[in-house]
């Protein structure tokens, strides 16, 4: 394993020190692993708190700032944060209008955020939660932990964040966050596994001639393995899975997301195929995002997330945002 780190145990705090040094707009509590806006809570504005394992950068800490999150709680690599972090973050960003927890649907994240929400309520902080579960590779049935939260998390954080900036009440911010999740679908493909610093070697073996279909964002294997194919075929596999679950139509917000180890030029190759695929269905990417946003350390691969837009969601997506990972219009 070759990684640009000082030591396996200090990766997360060292990266947080870097985040703080690079972005004066953030207040970073390195010891307790909480990232907040330096400007503090705004009275009357709903506070948005998210969190999850580290290793998905820029998610979540890179999306703290105007128009998106008020605080993020990074856990250890691929491990959900703990309730203490979430409670401290929720109290710190509560401007009196309550706090929305944005939770990706993984057992660990769900359990820790549930415990945090209960304790927040006991301390008088009003908390609502939205569960992001956009990954169509997982069958949503009694026999799984339910669909995983992946790329749509960014959409939820951006659009709910824009709604919160308007001063909308907690119920409204929650409603729009749920609408984004309900209208979003994702599918991921890995060309290589990732290597966590703690494990020191790839989390699964993938030959040069193979791809892993239906991956999540934690280096876990997907639902099936298949022969390596060209970008067009891989994109079609992803888009067919999405289309089968929610037929694509009309105007969409589309993200081609890199898993961390894929060059941008390849992501644009993939986006061209996504765009053609949508055109073939009479749909289009009215808004788009191409880049590494919801990553899995050094994994090679990509995911596609499609969110069916309406006027409200389009307007909120276009609203100004100023975070380390996403910024426009301000």
């Amino acid at each position, binding site marked *: 394993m070759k990684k640009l780190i000082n030591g396996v145990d200090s990766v997360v705090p060292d990266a947080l020190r870097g985040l703080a040094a690079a972005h004066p707009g953030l207040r970073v509590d390195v010891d307790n692993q909480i990232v907040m806006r330096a400007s503090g809570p705004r009275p009357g504005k709903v506070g948005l708190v998210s969190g999850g*394992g580290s290793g998905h950068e820029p998610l979540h800490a890179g999306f703290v700032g105007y128009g998106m999150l008020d605080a993020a709680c990074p*856990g*250890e*690599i*691929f*491990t*959900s*944060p*703990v*309730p*203490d972090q979430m409670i401290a973050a929720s109290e710190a960003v509560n401007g009196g209008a309550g706090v929305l927890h944005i939770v990706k649907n*993984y*057992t*660990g994240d769900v*359990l*820790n955020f549930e*415990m945090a929400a209960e304790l927040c309520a006991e301390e008088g902080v009003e908390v609502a939660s939205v569960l992001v579960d956009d990954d169509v*590779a*997982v*069958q949503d049935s*009694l*026999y*799984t*932990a339910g669909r*995983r939260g992946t790329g749509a998390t960014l959409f939820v954080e951006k659009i709910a964040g824009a709604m919160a900036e308007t001063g909308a009440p907690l119920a409204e911010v929650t409603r729009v966050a749920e609408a984004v999740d309900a209208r979003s679908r994702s599918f991921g493909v890995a060309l290589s596994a990732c290597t*966590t610093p*703690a*494990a020191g070697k790839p*989390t*699964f073996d993938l030959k040069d001639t193979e791809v892993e279909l239906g991956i*999540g964002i*934690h*280096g*876990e*294997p*997907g*639902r099936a393995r298949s022969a390596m194919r060209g970008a067009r075929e891989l994109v079609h596999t992803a888009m067919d899975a999405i289309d089968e679950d929610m037929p694509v139509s009309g105007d969409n917000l589309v993200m081609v997301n890199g898993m961390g180890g894929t060059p941008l030029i390849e992501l644009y190759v993939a986006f061209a195929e996504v765009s053609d695929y949508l055109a073939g269905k009479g749909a289009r990417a009215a808004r788009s995002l191409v880049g590494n946003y919801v990553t899995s350390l050094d994994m090679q691969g990509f995911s596609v997330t499609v969110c069916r837009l309406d006027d409200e969601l389009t307007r909120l997506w276009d609203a100004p945002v100023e975070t380390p990972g996403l910024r426009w219009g301000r």
Partner: protein
Amino acid sequence: MGAGDLDTAFFAAWIEEIARTVGVEKERLTRLDAAIGDADHGANLDRGFTAITQALAGTEPDTPGALLALVGSTLIRKVGGASGPLYGTAFREAGKCLGDASEVSATDLAAALQAALDGVQRLGSAAEGDKTMVDALAPAVRAMSRAAQEGKEPGEAIGAAASAALAGAEATVPMQARKGRASYLGPRSVGHEDPGAASTALVLVALRTVVTR
């Protein structure tokens, strides 16, 4: 106090033995987790029990119940992932069940283990056969309750529970996961031991190690 009843020092020794075993076995647990999960189970438990060792060095709970409750809340606060809340709840519920008794009989311990199992199932809503820690814990609870009902001393009851937990963990190999991150793999989760069941067996084997000293 009955023959072989267990005191606070015994439970402190148990926690110390768990911390030691988790330290030794963390790579095996992480390897199991890499096969069907996200390769962090060993590191997480090791971090949690290291934190507990530190927490216990600073304070001396004076009953077994208070000690286990402290272990539980430390796990919830320090570990994260699914294992933090699940193990944390298990220890906390066991501690609450023991109340402020200073000595613990086989019957008390069986009740505490049942409370731990109930807490885990309430939180994670897993049933036996889902390929989770419940598959090791539930048979251990049954074995211990049976031994306690038969009037066995704690040492013997713990031995039965540890064997049942090991067999239960082993039995997760052919199962298809229906809860937790391994469930995303569907049929591909078959053929691997569940890391949570494996670590639960470790915890109960540590209990046996301490009682047979």
